[in-house]
């Protein structure tokens, strides 16, 4: 092989991008996907991308999914990269999930409760049989409608809280930490932890949450309430001085009621784990609530023994944009470092660069 | 006051003037005691020197507030308008603007774990040369660097030595005169010329 110093990186990149675009489009005999189809028909994917991309915009999330060929981590990364370039016009008021227009609301700890159990659109009781009629298209799905119940649906923890059986939530007037603008340092406050979890990788959160159920930091969880629905987002423009609604977001909120804590001076109380996610994302919200509770071990005087209880481990590892970047960066050339390792290992073997064929057999 | 704010604009070219002023600051702190010209705003309000105004516009904002000491206190509206910085108390400031060296003990000097949580003092002086000569040694200096600004207190060498002893904690100093700046990072050792 005649060796010439490698050239052509620029041309290779251009050609690779062109190939990628062609591969993305696939067989042109098949109609091109419209982003509206993704938004309407792949809603759960859109929701995951919005959560992990830290940006509520179903249309852009659908575009990102299309651009990423359905690679949801890549799509979330696209949203994040856009998000950092967006100007900040203001800060919303805290959203009020109590006033959520509920699509679904269940509590596992009461048979019935004010506002009722609302089953809503769920896969929970579907039989997981492939529905071949979907492959044929043309489904005209219509759902039966009923009158909305004109009844308040207070958040279940508030019902328990009135009796003092559940710890009060940590309300704070302080300006919350902003993970998108400041580096996370440890020990991390709960607001910082919740932000990290809210955009953490769903699979990672699920695995960690599951690990607590398998004894690695068990916290005896009950689903106090899981609710899904739309909530208004309000801001107070300084020139107006009162709040105006600027839109709505669909959210999933999970309130776990966990193992009680107490002491001689403090009456026993259940403790909380909290999960909140953009869109309809029950698995994510529940896993987040389990991990949130696990991360409170130290604050609640429990021994910190399990991975899910180690805030630095969890929060430094849960971000899939960071994780995928670093895992995949191993594809970048490392031949300079590898060469230095080669020289070191040859030196250790007392052999300096003779042809490999003459190297002694590797030990062991 | 609004007239005053608008009569003395910020950078003529906010993006590129801030960049070039930052490079001057970076070089000034990386090469202690050497003088660097900044891209100054056209007509800064008195008593700000062009260099001092450029340093403020380059570094200060709502995330890194400045404490305006002495005669600079009057400039709070101008600083707020052009940088977004509110007024900070000396002991909570990221930057302290002064025309007389403040007592370092009154300013944040960071902790051993977070030594960067300390104040940078922006000191406006009459001139960066012509004063009593000092000898600087330390990172950024090949062997030694002469530095002779006007306007430092008579006990500066002792006060700086006390600051140096806190290392890695400590105060960093940016001196401004005319359209020039010089830096004295906490890592620099200062002695009198003998």
């Amino acid at each position, binding site marked *: 092989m005649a*060796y010439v*110093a*490698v050239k052509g*990186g620029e041309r*290779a*990149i251009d050609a690779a991008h062109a190939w990628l675009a062609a591969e993305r489009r696939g067989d042109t005999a098949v109609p091109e996907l419209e982003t509206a189809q993704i938004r309407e028909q792949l809603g759960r994917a859109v929701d995951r991308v919005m959560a992990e991309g830290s940006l509520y915009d179903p249309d852009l999330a659908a575009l990102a999914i299309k651009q990423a060929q359905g690679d949801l981590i890549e799509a979330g*990364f696209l949203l994040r*990269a856009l*998000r950092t*370039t967006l100007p900040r016009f203001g800060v919303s008021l805290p959203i009020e999930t109590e006033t959520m227009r509920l699509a679904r609301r269940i509590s596992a700890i009461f048979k019935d409760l004010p506002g009722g159990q609302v089953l809503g659109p769920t896969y929970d009781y579907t039989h997981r049989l492939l529905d071949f009629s979907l492959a044929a298209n043309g489904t005209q799905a219509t759902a039966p409608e009923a009158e909305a119940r004109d009844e308040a649906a207070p958040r279940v923890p508030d019902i328990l809280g009135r009796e003092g059986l559940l710890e009060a939530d940590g309300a704070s007037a302080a300006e919350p930490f902003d993970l998108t603008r400041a*580096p*996370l340092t*440890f020990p991390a406050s709960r607001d910082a932890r919740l932000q990290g979890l809210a955009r953490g990788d769903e699979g990672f959160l699920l695995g960690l949450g599951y690990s607590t159920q398998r004894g690695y930091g068990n916290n005896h969880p009950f689903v106090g309430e899981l609710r899904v629905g739309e909530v208004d987002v309000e801001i107070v423009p300084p020139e107006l001085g009162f709040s105006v609604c600027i839109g709505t977001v669909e959210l999933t909120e999970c309130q776990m009621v966990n193992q009680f804590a107490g002491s001689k001076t403090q009456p026993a109380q259940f403790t909380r784990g909290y999960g909140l996610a953009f869109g309809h994302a029950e698995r994510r919200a529940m896993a987040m609530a389990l991990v949130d509770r696990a991360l409170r071990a130290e604050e609640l005087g429990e021994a910190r023994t399990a991975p899910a209880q180690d805030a630095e481990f969890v929060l*430094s590892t849960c971000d899939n944009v960071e994780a995928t*970047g*670093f895992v*995949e*960066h191993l594809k*970048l050339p*490392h031949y*300079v*470092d590898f*060469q*230095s*390792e*080669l*020289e*070191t290992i040859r030196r*250790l073997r007392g052999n300096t660069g003779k*042809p*490999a*064929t003459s190297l002694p057999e590797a030990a062991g | 006051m609004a007239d005053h704010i608008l009569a003395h604009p910020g950078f003529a070219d*906010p*993006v*590129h003037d*801030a*960049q070039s002023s*930052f*490079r001057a*600051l*970076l070089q000034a702190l*990386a*090469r202690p005691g050497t003088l660097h010209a900044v891209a100054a705003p056209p007509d800064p309000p008195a008593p700000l020197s062009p260099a001092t105004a450029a340093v403020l516009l380059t*570094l200060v*904002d709502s*995330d*890194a507030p400045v404490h305006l000491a002495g005669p600079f206190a009057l400039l709070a509206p101008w600083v707020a308008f052009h940088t977004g910085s509110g007024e900070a108390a000396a002991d909570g400031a990221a930057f302290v603007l002064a025309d007389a060296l403040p007592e370092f003990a009154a300013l944040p000097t960071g*902790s*051993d*774990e977070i*030594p*960067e949580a300390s104040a940078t003092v922006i000191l406006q002086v009459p001139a960066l040369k012509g004063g009593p000569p000092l000898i600087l040694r330390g*990172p*950024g200096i*090949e062997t030694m660097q002469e530095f002779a600004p006007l306007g430092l207190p008579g006990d500066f060498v002792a006060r700086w030595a006390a600051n140096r002893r806190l290392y*890695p904690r400590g105060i*960093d100093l940016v001196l401004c005169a005319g359209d020039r700046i010089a830096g004295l*990072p*906490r*890592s620099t050792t200062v002695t009198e010329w003998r």
Partner: protein
Amino acid sequence: MKGYNFAYLDEQTKRMLRRALLKAVAIPGHQIPFGAREMPLPYGWGTGGIQVTASVIGRGDTLKVIDQGADDTTNAVSIRRFFAKTAGVRTTTRTAEATVIQTRHRIPETPLTDAQIIVYQVPQPEPLYKLEPSRTETRRMHALADYGAMHVKLYEQVARYGQIAISYDYPVMVNGRHLMAPSPIPAFDNPKMHRMKALQLFGAGREKRIYAVPPYTEVVSLDFEDYPFRAGRAPHACALCGDTASYLDEVVTDDRGGRMFVCSDTNHCATRRERAA
């Protein structure tokens, strides 16, 4: 580039980075946490270096980007294009012409001057992380200059292998105070950091840390008196330019053990060949 600020980052983000850089210069080798932003390139692919370069670079600069010492490796091309597009700056492959050099894994062979800034892409800024994964704990170790564990690690290597066996990212002591990761440059490059005339800036985007080494600063590779630091290179001459002192890549030329050695610094090699021609 339309719709984006000069050098991509908004001015507030640049100010945040610039303040961190000035602190980094004031405390050589100390890692400063900063609010790293998501960049349009993935974490681990140079986002820290890119953010540092973006906050430093101006219209008058000439940028060189290398990866593994080469200007033409795909990631170097990608980053150079990013700045050509977002900042419209002049780019070069010639080390001597550059005012800002962004690098991954190498320091150019041509000695840098006091008119240059070198920006290192850093995957793992914490030199102690293999000994202590908790950054809460390593921060405390840096505060106390408690670096005994690193010396123990080196000593264990001497006991096991008869020498220190770290080949790259070889830890250095900066200004006699802070233990620092030089980024994964080969140990061969470590001596170039010592009292370098150029300002050295380090950016770790994913780990959200910035650090710096001012010009002429002491940068000492850890070692023992009886086991001094050794900078290794392949004991060959470059097959293209004949250099016997530069750092070499080993290129496999067939599947029968054939190989050749060529300069890792492509500009250095090309310049030598131009001169010889």
